[in-house]
């Protein structure tokens, strides 16, 4: 990931910053310029809650080069309390014991780094509660 791209996404990757439409209340994550429900362009900035439910997941056994050291690992769709669904790695777990419907909490983790000399990319991952 290019550094400017990582930097632009810091607010939603670090703080789960989302936009709540001032007109219809729809929540966009990450933030957008136009509400997909009502085309309004005014949003309140909110931070999503750090608890949710695992909807579904998949186990990655053959990972891309950046994630080779982490394989096998799970990637899941987690629905947060606000109803927003996020795609996230699931960490600190036994991948054989994951089940849809499990309660999850969001933690701050390293996502990947550009080798041992590049920038470290941080963001959110989910951990079973």
């Amino acid at each position, binding site marked *: 990931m290019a550094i400017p791209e990582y930097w632009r996404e*810091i607010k939603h990757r*670090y*703080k789960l910053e989302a936009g709540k439409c001032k007109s219809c209340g729809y929540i966009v994550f990450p933030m957008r310029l136009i509400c997909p429900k009502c085309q309004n362009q005014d949003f309140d900035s909110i*931070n999503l809650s*750090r608890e949710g439910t695992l909807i579904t997941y998949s186990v990655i056994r053959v990972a891309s*080069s950046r994630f*080779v*050291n*982490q394989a096998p690992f799970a990637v899941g769709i987690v629905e947060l309390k606000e109803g927003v669904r996020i795609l996230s*790695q699931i*960490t*600190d777990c*036994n991948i054989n014991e994951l089940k849809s419907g499990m309660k999850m909490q969001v*933690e*701050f*983790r*390293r*996502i990947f780094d550009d080798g*041992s000399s590049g920038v*470290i990319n*941080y963001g959110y*991952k989910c951990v079973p509660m």
Partner: protein
Amino acid sequence: MTGIVSYASYVPRYRIKVEDIAAQWGFDATVIKKGLFVQEKSVPAPDQDTITMSVEAARRAVFGGGIDPETIQAVYVGSESHPYAVKPTGTTVAEAIGATPDAHCADFEFACKAGSEAMFVTLNMVEAQQMSYALAIGADTSQGAPGDALEYTASAGAAAFIMGKEQPVAECLETYSHMSDTPDFWRREHEFYPQHAGRFTGEPAYFKHVLNCANFIMKKTGLQASDFGYAVFHQPNGKFPLRAGKKLGFTEDQLKQGLLCPYIGNTYSGSSPLGLAAVLDVAKPGDLILMVSYGSGAGSDGFVWRVTKDIEKMRKKILYTWDQIHGEKFYLDYGQYAKFRGKIRSNAS
């Protein structure tokens, strides 16, 4: 009065037992466990480092204290394992908890004393009325060289303290620091593992500074060991803090609540701060707590804390330290541990 308005800790979920490390190198685990008074140690997950654990501890403290993160004016992180050699830990932590941009960030480093150093500075910034809230964190993912005695104890954890003047949960009655140039433990630039001076790390290093610091701060405050509810000392192993405590006149009952090393190892900059967090989890209003850190190189920071009635409400909202230590754990064998800690050469790393 200035003090801790909120606090919290973070202990990783992975552990390795002394038996597994000893077996790898052909040593007798019984002898090591008895010598160091350590059973097992915490291990950070491969996607954790000082920054991620600092963020988790800090978020818990912000939530526990019900503090608006935008009012936190300093984020000071003490560690000997800052993820970057050049690029601050503090800015990432401040950004993640929502304290930016109106905050002062600094990274502290002083072997195992960096956490209490951040606590000392934040307390004084608040006391000098330069800031209303200031956040101090002690965190480490320390490494011991394979086969070295430090490998049985070098572990990971973080503790965060928000200092302020309004309704502190523990007031700081006194501080005292005791320093000297003592080369007992070090790591040169670009070296991966630290080195130490063996037995020299004991009497002229750890005990001299910890005992002098404790004796001086008790003299300064006119307090005796029996006046305290609890005492917490830096924990490079399980034995040193017990021996130091007993020399100062403390009983095992005063020491055991804050003695975490036997179950999680030496969390370095997190060590005495995590011990203090564990004590604050159970202390009663009015209890006095003595805390003395130690960092090689060398020096000790001493604090006398008095717990207030406001602690009951605040700590209801955080995860207790001992509950994290005894909570869900994943045990690693030596091979998994070596992979987790980047001790294996491969083409992928």
